[in-house]
């Protein structure tokens, strides 16, 4: 299963990246336009400079005698700095007559033709004079242009980089506001569960979410109705099943009381025993039906201690072996959980029944409230391995025992613990003992 992701985070990242990308594209386009403009300006200046310089050099040429010499003359004004533009004055054979102090004495590798010529490092403009006998070539280094271009581009991009964090903040604010209905829907849906199937009741949802909200409400209503029908069925079944069994049992017991001793009374005893067995089995099946109907979670937290006391009291009052049951409840202890008390009582009854039935006779069975998040039933007896206890929650699977039972008790408890949001924990030997078993219902603390 892929890891879950945050829609807000993903949107923020992609929107920020998208925005930054468009900004950078815009800056790139701007830089290209800027370069065109720069080239025009530089070319214009280069052309102008060449033409002006040509007239000056022609004057100088006619006044100077040096030009008749074989070597080119370097024009080097005192205090001259490194120059941006370099030039060469060449005759029609290509010989360099004159060059600026940063220009080489060797001729530029530029044809003697009026106009622009580009090589790797320079853009050179050539102008001809005196019937194409003199050529002035002025070279403008491309580095200079590139530097101007880069500075211009940097001026465009740097503010964008600074604006990205600000845009993240703005996008986050916009997303938070825009996605608020989703958060609201998420919160409401996350509050729904076994104990809360109320409709969401979100009337003012945006169009995109209104359909989802309505569908969830419909689903919740149907689910609630289905679960309620199942619970009602279990409750009505309990009544409809218990009443005739109760009648049959009561009549049989009257028969037993009125019959003289003998084989008829023995038969009545067998009927009574069968009816009691049916009672126990129907009890378990009804509990299982209730567990399957999803009782367990409740919307409102309640203190389970009063219900626990009642359940323990039920057993103790029956006397006999049940008198072994001890309740360990430190004063002031409360067991507050969002749990259906009927589900809790069914689970606890089953744990106590099991401990009384399968623990050694005449040894105490302890019901212990272990703080606010757990209750345990502890009985004596041989140590049981984890491999064995793991199979106890399977329906109709009974442990290695000759005691009467349906094999449903612990599967009912397991199912109820799950719907109560708790864990069913087996521990053998029991804590602080070398034997025995502790079976606990534990809620996350």
């Amino acid at each position: 299963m892929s890891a879950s992701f945050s829609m807000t985070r993903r949107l923020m990242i992609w929107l920020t990246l998208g925005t930054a990308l468009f900004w950078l594209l815009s800056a790139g386009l701007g830089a290209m336009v800027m370069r065109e403009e720069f080239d025009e300006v530089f070319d214009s200046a280069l052309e102008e400079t060449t033409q002006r310089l040509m007239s000056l050099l022609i004057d100088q040429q006619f006044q100077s005698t040096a030009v008749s010499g074989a070597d080119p003359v370097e024009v080097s004004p005192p205090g001259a700095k490194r120059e941006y533009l370099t030039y060469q004055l060449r005759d029609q054979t290509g010989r360099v007559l004159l060059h600026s102090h940063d220009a080489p004495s060797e001729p530029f590798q530029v044809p003697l033709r009026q106009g622009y010529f580009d090589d790797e490092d320079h853009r050179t403009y050539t102008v001809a004079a005196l019937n194409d006998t003199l050529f002035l070539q002025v070279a403008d280094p491309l580095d200079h242009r590139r530097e101007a271009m880069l500075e211009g581009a940097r001026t465009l991009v740097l503010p964008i980089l600074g604006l990205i964090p600000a845009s993240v903040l703005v996008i986050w604010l916009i997303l938070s506001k825009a996605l608020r209905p989703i958060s609201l829907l998420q919160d409401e849906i996350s509050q729904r569960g076994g104990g809360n199937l109320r409709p969401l009741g979100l009337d003012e949802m945006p169009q995109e979410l209104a359909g989802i909200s309505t569908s969830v409400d419909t689903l919740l209503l149907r689910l609630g109705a289905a679960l309620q029908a199942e619970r009602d069925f279990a409750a009505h079944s309990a009544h409809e099943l218990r009443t005739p069994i109760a009648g049959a049992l009561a009549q049989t017991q009257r028969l037993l009381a009125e019959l003289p001793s003998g084989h008829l009374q023995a038969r009545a005893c067998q009927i009574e025993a069968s009816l009691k067995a049916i009672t126990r089995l129907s009890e378990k099946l009804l509990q299982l039906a209730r567990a399957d109907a999803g009782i367990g979670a409740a919307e409102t937290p309640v203190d389970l201690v009063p219900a626990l006391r009642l359940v323990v009291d039920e057993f103790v009052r029956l006397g006999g072996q049940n008198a072994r049951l001890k309740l360990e409840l430190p004063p002031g202890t409360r067991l507050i959980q969002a749990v259906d008390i009927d589900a809790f009582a069914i689970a606890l009854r089953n744990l106590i029944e099991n401990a009384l039935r399968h623990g050694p006779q005449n040894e105490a069975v302890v019901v212990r409230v272990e703080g606010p998040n757990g209750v345990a039933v502890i009985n004596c007896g041989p140590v049981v391995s984890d491999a064995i206890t793991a199979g106890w929650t399977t329906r109709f699977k009974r442990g290695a025992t000759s005691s009467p039972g349906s094999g449903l008790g612990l599967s009912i408890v397991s199912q109820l613990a799950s719907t109560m949001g708790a864990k069913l924990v087996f521990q053998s030997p029991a804590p602080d003992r070398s034997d025995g078993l502790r079976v606990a219902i534990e809620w996350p603390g």
Partner: protein
Amino acid sequence: MRVLLVEDDPTIGNAVRDHAASQGHAVDWATTIAQADAFSDVVDSDLILLDLQLPDGSGVAFLKRLRGRRNMTPVIVLTARDQISDRIEGLNAGADDYLVKPFDLGELAARIHAVARRYGQRTTPIIQLGDVEVEPAERRLTGPHGAIDLSGREWAVLDCLLRHPGTIVPKSRIEDALYALGSEVQSNTVEVYVSRLRKKLGSSHVVTVRGLGYRMDVA
């Protein structure tokens, strides 16, 4: 004791009535809330056995009305509603005990005695009448020469007197305890059973208070 049984199921009602009668209790049997209301208006019951799901209403509502009238007659709920929340609702409405169907008639008898003992302020389950030991819960009477047998009606009279030890119990109240046992009560019926009790327990324990009723002197 005079017991009002409120139960709509004839099979259960019939068995409970017969069992209670065999224990010496006089039973009035109502199958609806309306009948139960009528009984409680005219008969001073010592105990009510109440089903919760009746054809014309809820037993809990009947119980609340009863307690609302400050009628503190002990009530044991007999119901098929087995959930702990039902039990809490029943106890909160004023029930003294709660027994889930199907129940054992022996368990029901024990609960009836326990409630009766609590309301009769008997702190001990064994009552000493001179040489005679009475164990009402077990319906056992032991004299110096062994067990003493009492008929159902004799038990009904003895139980009625034992629940108010040292105080005068009107003859009409003892008659009430005998009426529902199923047979006619003649004008001298109470005297007949008191006389039989005196023979079995000794003459000094049941004292006649002329014109008012009878008093049980407990040692």
